[in-house]
């Protein structure tokens, strides 16, 4: 257990060593005393792990992988572990930190969301990219979730407007309007909408 605690302490230090832009609400900085204690706790960890390089070396030599595969795979895995430990990302290596950030705090009952909207005689229809990227729920497009996600990233841009307008025209539909919707998070009802352009 104490080894896990010491390793957690080391990870706490390494993962906070490099500021990352994905933290939109970074935690408060640690005090000088905490930093000194945490650094001091590295000494027993290093002592406990002193035989680790020898054991890793032996495991590496005795590995059943062919030599070339062993070299390439070990390098790839080592670089990946480095990225995880330092909490950084450089394609193709990742800290797998999706959904792990301290993002903006959650909303109360009401929230505003931007969406493309199609008006029709019955009212309006929200045009949601991820819905259009789902073959079970799509109504207008035959995208996959990747294409839908990409378009979602650039929603509201003139390029996406043009792409949507051109493709909806083929369905004899008018251009979609990009609006800000006021949404009730309990009922899911759209309370009001304002055109953004």
């Amino acid at each position, binding site marked *: 257990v104490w080894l896990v605690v010491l390793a957690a302490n080391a990870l706490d230090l390494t993962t906070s060593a490099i500021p990352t832009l994905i933290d939109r609400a970074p935690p408060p900085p640690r005090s000088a005393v905490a930093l000194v204690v945490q650094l001091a706790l590295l000494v027993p960890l290093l002592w406990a792990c002193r035989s680790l390089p020898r054991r890793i070396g032996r495991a590496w030599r005795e590995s059943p992988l062919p030599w070339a595969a062993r070299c390439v795979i070990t390098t790839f895995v080592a670089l990946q572990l480095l990225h995880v430990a330092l909490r950084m990302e450089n394609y*193709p290596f990742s800290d797998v930190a999706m959904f792990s950030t301290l993002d903006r705090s959650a909303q109360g009952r009401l929230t505003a969301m931007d969406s493309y909207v199609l008006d029709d005689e019955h009212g309006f229809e929200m045009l949601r990219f991820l819905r259009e990227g789902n073959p079970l729920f799509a109504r207008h497009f035959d995208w996959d979730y*990747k294409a839908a996600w990409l378009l979602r990233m650039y929603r509201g841009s003139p390029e996406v407007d043009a792409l949507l307008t051109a493709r909806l025209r083929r369905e004899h539909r008018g251009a979609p309007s990009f609006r800000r919707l006021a949404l009730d998070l309990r009922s899911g009802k759209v309370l009001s909408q304002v055109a953004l352009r």
Partner: protein
Amino acid sequence: MTRFPDSIVARMRRPGSPTHLAVVRIVFALHVLIVLTSPSLPISVELGVDPLFLTNTMVPATVEQWTARASHLDALIALGVAAAVAMMLGLLTRLAVPLVLVVFALTQNHFFRRSLFHDDWLYFNFYLLVLWFAPCADRLAVDRWLFRKRERQPHEYRWPVEVMIGWFVSIYLAAALAKLFPLRKGVAWLQGAPLQHLAQYFLLDSPIYWVLHRPLFDYGVRWPFCVAAVGAVVIELATALVLLTTRFDGWVVGAILFLHGAIWLLGIPGFIQIALVSAVLFLRPRRTG
């Protein structure tokens, strides 16, 4: 390792199945084929967008710029599709697999840099790298008729599968560590506010909303998201069991599929397909020794 006789290190030395490895090759080639023919790549060119600020890459800028040109991207995709079909058929596999790896890595770099979406590349860059070194065309392959079969040790069919399973597990362990560390952030994350924000932010994109036209419950209440946050981390950490024993394989894979299913219902697509495709790795021989 005697304390864990069924650990991943011990399993790498056990006999594998050439047929299983061939099935892994075919399933992965099919998945790559689907990824390469995704409309996302041509759409990214149509949009003419530059790489996003938050994405970093080790792919050199000159290579990236070359890839981003429409004609080059089309040529790369065509090459990748041809190589993936060859990989599926087991035709010139020694050449096809590295070609698929290079094309896949470059096209997914192009996609990631413009979408900030972490999906297939997290898993398949490594899977394809391992398959490059694996004797994956000794069964269900055209190469069997074209080339003389080499005598192999039974474990040569096993280590690639176990190494890929190790990578699969490492992704979830890394995801758990990223949620928990730094610890001050981890404690705040486990209280559920980021998950709550995610559910609210993706409400209109969630299949739950498309069916019910409302949230599953009041997303303004925090405690269900606290439970979900702790549950997600527990499931991700539990994947480590696979490194020690095969006894819990079914539970772990089931829990991962449940996790991705729940994320999909909240509005984030993609990972459930990858987990299902990766699950083919776990169909390896069960008997020990």
